[in-house]
């Protein structure tokens, strides 16, 4: 019980300090208030034109599609992460060494940092954009089920973190993992469903996505938000979909733990 309390205090402190630290740069977050709605507006007109007279596309009607893009934009603000870049920088500069001296392992520290950082994102990116979507674009942003959407977004938050952290861990072997980061961001951007719902992909590619982490980061929480999930011919109820997402997060955590243990044996910094 004491251990739990102790961990909670560390989590709260790291998150609070990160929040305060980044609050000094809150105008960075405010860029999203312009960028997010502009991208959304473009998507809105693209899909309004593409639907034309068609009732549904990829199993979604126009309203669902608009809600889908609104949801992916907003969820993006809640789960955004750069743990890979941060870890890579710490390894390259040797500063990672100091984390061995701290009473908390770096992965937990980075996760708590992300919590604080994204809480800032919630205040300065998520909320203003939500209000813009509702009151300016007139989009119905009420989720089909609020509790399941919250759980799904939390799982997407963890999935995004563990995937990024694993990418960052490759720096222990490569020192400079910029190439892998860029390649991963490229693939993730497409296969997470942020650009276009995965229902539009060929069937074999949809099936492949069931076994890759990408769809659990953006597509699944957005579909849970809209209240309908299907991919590669697999139709799941919302609780089933969230259950599958939870299992995927556990698998990713296992992979991350495996790589992390091996990576720690690779670390050779002698001072920072």
């Amino acid at each position, binding site marked *: 019980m004491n251990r739990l309390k102790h961990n909670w205090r560390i989590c709260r402190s790291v998150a609070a300090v990160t929040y305060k630290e980044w609050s000094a740069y809150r105008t960075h977050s405010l860029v999203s208030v312009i960028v997010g709605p502009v991208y959304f507006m*473009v998507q809105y007109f693209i899909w309004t034109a593409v639907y034309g007279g068609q009732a549904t596309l990829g199993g979604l009607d126009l309203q669902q599609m608009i809600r889908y893009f609104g949801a992916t934009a907003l969820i993006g603000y809640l789960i955004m992460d750069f743990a890979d870049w941060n870890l890579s920088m710490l390894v390259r500069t040797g500063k990672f060494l100091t984390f061995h001296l701290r009473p908390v392992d770096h992965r937990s520290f980075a996760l708590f940092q992300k919590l604080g950082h994204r809480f800032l994102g919630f205040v300065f990116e998520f909320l203003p954009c939500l209000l813009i979507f509702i009151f300016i674009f007139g989009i119905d942003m009420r989720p089909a089920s609020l509790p399941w959407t919250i759980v799904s977004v939390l799982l997407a938050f963890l999935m995004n973190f563990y995937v990024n952290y694993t990418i960052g861990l490759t720096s222990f072997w490569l020192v400079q993992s910029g190439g892998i980061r860029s390649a991963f961001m490229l693939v993730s951007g497409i296969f997470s469903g942020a650009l276009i719902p995965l229902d539009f992909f060929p069937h074999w590619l949809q099936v492949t996505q069931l076994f890759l982490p990408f769809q659990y980061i953006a597509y699944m929480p957005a579909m849970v938000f809209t209240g309908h999930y299907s991919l590669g011919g697999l139709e799941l109820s919302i609780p089933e979909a969230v259950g599958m997402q939870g299992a995927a997060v556990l698998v990713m955590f296992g992979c991350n733990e495996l790589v992390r243990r091996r990576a720690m044996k690779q670390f050779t910094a002698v001072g920072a």
Partner: protein
Amino acid sequence: MKRYVEVYKQCMYSAVQTASAYRMNFIVSSLITLIGNILFPLVTLLIYRAGTSFPGWSLYEVLLIQSVFTMSSGLSSLVFGGVMWTTMSHVREGSFEVVLLKPLNPLFYLVATTFSTESAGLFLGGAALFVFSAWHVGAIPALAWLQFAGMFIAGTAVLAGLSLMMAAMSFKWVGNSRISELADSVLSVGKYPLPIFPKAVQAAATMIIPVGMVGFLPASALLGRVQAGDFIAILPCFIFLWAGMWVYRHMIRLYEGVGG
């Protein structure tokens, strides 16, 4: 003038030499950029594969717009791409004085020294897609090529103007690495046929921030879809570039570094 050409040539030579010193990094970065370009029109392909379309536009016509956009971005990035990041870095570190002390126009110095060889991948990726889509849209008359060339240069001027405005912004919005996202979001309008947007957006995208000239209008010229009135939009493109240069020079005067 001759001196400026010589300096620019020397800077280009240095950039190529630097790229060849880190060949692997150059090859990987260029490859990723190239693959990124191949995947960029994926959304369009998937939309058309689903049996639907942008009304009045065939798949290859939309790909043509997107390829022109990519080529223009590549060209602009090659020449102006590094100005924003270098300015931002100098302002943040308080070392912009070093640029001001050079016996050259500071804007020219930054443009010349930030020649970005990695953007060659972006331009080549766009060019490959351009050849592919132009091949499929049918015969293009010589006059259309001429109109395209003029509009393409105007579109590249818009991108250069945007780069300079973003760079100028970093004098006041110190260290904000997300400034470029502002330009990217506005530019996303130019990647699709303009008629799908409301009239107000179309007007803004041709006369105010003429992003329509980056992909849509040059491609329309090749397809024989431009009206005489569309050529008026070339003027605001060069005004936009001039405005970018003016704003940048004006912001230099507001620089308040205390020594690099």
